């Protein structure tokens, strides 16, 4: 096991089930991604603080500590991306994990492609945010360009007119590119206070926003819906024509 964090990224796998842990490890190693692992919460916190991994894959159902507690602990000292793995189909625990600071989630059984896709998205976000420090005035993803300085949005170099709420939503999503934002978080950011009665409004604005910026209405590329949970903006390679 290579515990050194050298040129590539290092992923911490927190999973108590041996076969699943083996599956993740072999998959990662097959794709040349370095990893370390922990089989319980205490070990996870130790490993995370010792090696400061780039990404944590965290199973919520651990024998000793509740996964959400681990997220809260890690967030006290680090913003390292955390991808939560859950066997429960309930939305509530995923939302809790996301609100506690997790970046993304997967439900068991997940496919290998899904696992790799999530890691890829997170790593890309990691690299761009390192470069841009998350404070840049202009954010681009594919053919979408958001100029926060002037408050203008372009798709294919054509300016798109958004309502104030649509624009606010887009900015919140863009600043958290690659991260799943819960409905609660988005409503707090756009409307100021959370109220569940705003959820339908959020859906409508999201739908109209996507209609304005997505090239293909049936197949969104910029904004992903996580039904019952929230939304995520994806960084697309630049200028795909």
């Amino acid at each position: 096991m290579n515990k050194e964090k050298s040129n590539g990224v290092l992923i911490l796998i927190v999973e108590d089930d041996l076969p699943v842990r083996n599956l993740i490890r072999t998959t990662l190693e097959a794709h040349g991604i370095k990893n370390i692992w922990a089989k319980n919460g205490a070990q996870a916190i130790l490993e995370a603080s010792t090696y400061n991994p780039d990404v944590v894959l965290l199973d919520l159902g651990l024998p000793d500590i509740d996964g959400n507690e681990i997220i809260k602990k890690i967030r006290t000292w680090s913003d390292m991306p955390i991808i939560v793995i859950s066997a429960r189909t309930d939305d509530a625990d995923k939302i809790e994990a996301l609100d506690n600071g997790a970046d993304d989630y997967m439900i068991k059984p997940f496919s290998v492609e899904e696992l790799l896709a999530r890691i890829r998205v997170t790593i890309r976000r990691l690299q761009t945010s390192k470069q841009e420090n998350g404070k840049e005035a202009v954010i681009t993803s594919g053919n979408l360009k958001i100029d926060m300085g002037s408050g203008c949005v372009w798709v294919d170099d054509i300016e798109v007119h958004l309502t104030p709420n649509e624009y606010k939503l887009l900015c919140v999503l863009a600043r958290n590119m690659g991260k799943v934002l819960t409905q609660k978080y988005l409503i707090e950011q756009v409307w100021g206070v959370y109220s569940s009665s705003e959820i339908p409004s959020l859906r409508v604005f999201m739908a109209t926003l996507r209609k304005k910026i997505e090239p293909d209405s049936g197949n969104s590329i910029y904004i992903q819906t996580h039904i019952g949970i929230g939304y995520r903006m994806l960084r697309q390679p630049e200028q795909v024509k």
Partner: protein
Amino acid sequence: MDDISSVDSPRILVGVSSSPSNEKIIRAAAHLMEMTGGVLTALYISAKADSFKSIEDRSRLDSNINLAKRLGASVETVFAEDVALQMAEYANESGTDIIVIGNSPAHSGFLINTSNLVVRLSELAPGLEIYVVPESAFSKYVRPHFIPFSGKNFLRGMMKSFAVLTVASLIGMLFQLSGFSDVNIITLYILGVLAISIITEGYSVIFISSILGVFVFNFLFMEPRYTLFTFRNDYPVTFAVMFISAMVTGSLASRLKYNTKKSAEYAYRTKILLEASRLFQKSDSEGEILKITAEQLRNLLKQTIVIYAPEEKNPEIYIYKNDTSEDLLSDEERKIAKSVMDDMHCAGRGTKRFPDAKCRYYSIRIGNHVYGVVGIYVTTDIDNFELEIMLSILGECAIAMDNLHNIRKKEEALQRADKERTRANIIRSISHDLRTPLTSISGHASNLYYDPERFEETEKKKMAADIYDDSMWLIELVENLLSASKMEDGQINLSMTDELMDDILEEALIHVSRRKSEYDITVVPSGKLLFVHVDTHLIVQLLINIINNAMKYSKIGSKITIRSELSGDGMVKTEIYDNGPGISDDAKKHIFEMYYTENRVSSDSSRSMGLGLAICKSIVELHNGNIDVRDNLPHGTIISFTLPGKEIELNE
């Protein structure tokens, strides 16, 4: 009967009657009860003849019954002609040890005297101890027949009397002109008094009419006419005879009338009881039984009835005629009703608890189970006979409620057993179905693990693909089972939210089989924001099942189209078209049944759970929607379902 109680605390039976001496007997029996620590039952044997009793009798009977109750006896009423037989039977059935009776010949009317009763009782129930209470003070008991005096009635009666006597006089004059003898005219007046007694009430009118008739006859027809004097010596005798005849006929007719009326009333009340029990047998809900009870009590008592059902906040009120119902449902009244519901004892107007309340409350109960409370808006007194009938109706009502309750319990138990059986069947079938893919998965994995060198690279790949397919099949099954378990208790476990149909479709398409790239799947944009009020996970599962099913039964490359639109009735309709081989009409009837798999030529493995579409149907129906299947043209299948739509208001 409990042996110990019959030894330690004897059961004492006392007969209740309308006799004035009965009070003494009841007190003697109560005294005996206190001395022995026994249990006292006061038995009132209502013979048919009793309904012909006077009001005075009636009130005396009531007071005797009340006395018995006050002294701690439980009062029972039975209907029988033969007092001795009935008493003996009752004593036998109730395990009575001691019977207390009086020795008055009037005890049970004219037919049986006490010595007769004692002899018969000892014959019929030889084990009984019979205590005879002497009551010489009341040795002679007359039944007076008396109708209370009422000024208004009297005046009306007198007017009628005048009218009848005038008519009689006119006819009499006609008789005299025709030369008929005086005797005919006298008969005419007697007839007149008879007529008066029928159309009026009270003895005073009959009495006065009789005298009046004599005087008018004297005045109009006796020489010297138009005076109240007579010449002939025998006329006073004639007058006396005439008066007595008129008086006797009149009072007989009056009594007959009174008795007829009483027996009609008696019959009416008994009819109400019979009708109530007949209606109870037919009814099949608690509400109906309570309604019948209220209506029958209203008919019986001619008073407004309030019904409180258990667990029901708002009582039902059954107003009698023009009664004002105000305040009958006030907080205080409800409180009393509630307390009766809790402790089952009668309370309210005229009782010890809350005597000033508007209504009197009785519980409808069996054992310790209260099925409701009846409130009677007491405006006129309830006599004991009415009370007995009323308590009988309440008793019948409680029995009917209890029966219903038991039937329902039984049905529930049967349903539960049925559900358990179904569940056991499903689990057995699923476990059976699981064996096939698990055999394949474990077999292939074991080959790859133990003998990897025996297989060609292509074979290994094929084995891995099989493992993958089988495990995907298992995943699909598990998802459906999770949906099924979520739906098991109806809508309770659903988490309903307002979602965009397009979002749900997008989510579903992410999760359909990885072979979706081999098909041409198109989502037709709806152009509108179609919100549905649903449990999202179930609807995603529904779409996954339908789309996977469409792929399973269509050739690779087939076209699958999904379209959603608002249908007229506020529902959102979604249709999934495929251009596969289609489904036969016969199979269409069954595809939503559990474990139905159509035997079609399939490009894929023929293994199928047949669980998917059945779950689809459950999901749609749980959302109060419809699912159905029809043919696509020129070939293929369209599955369409509706879900409740939702209007959304925007907060900009």
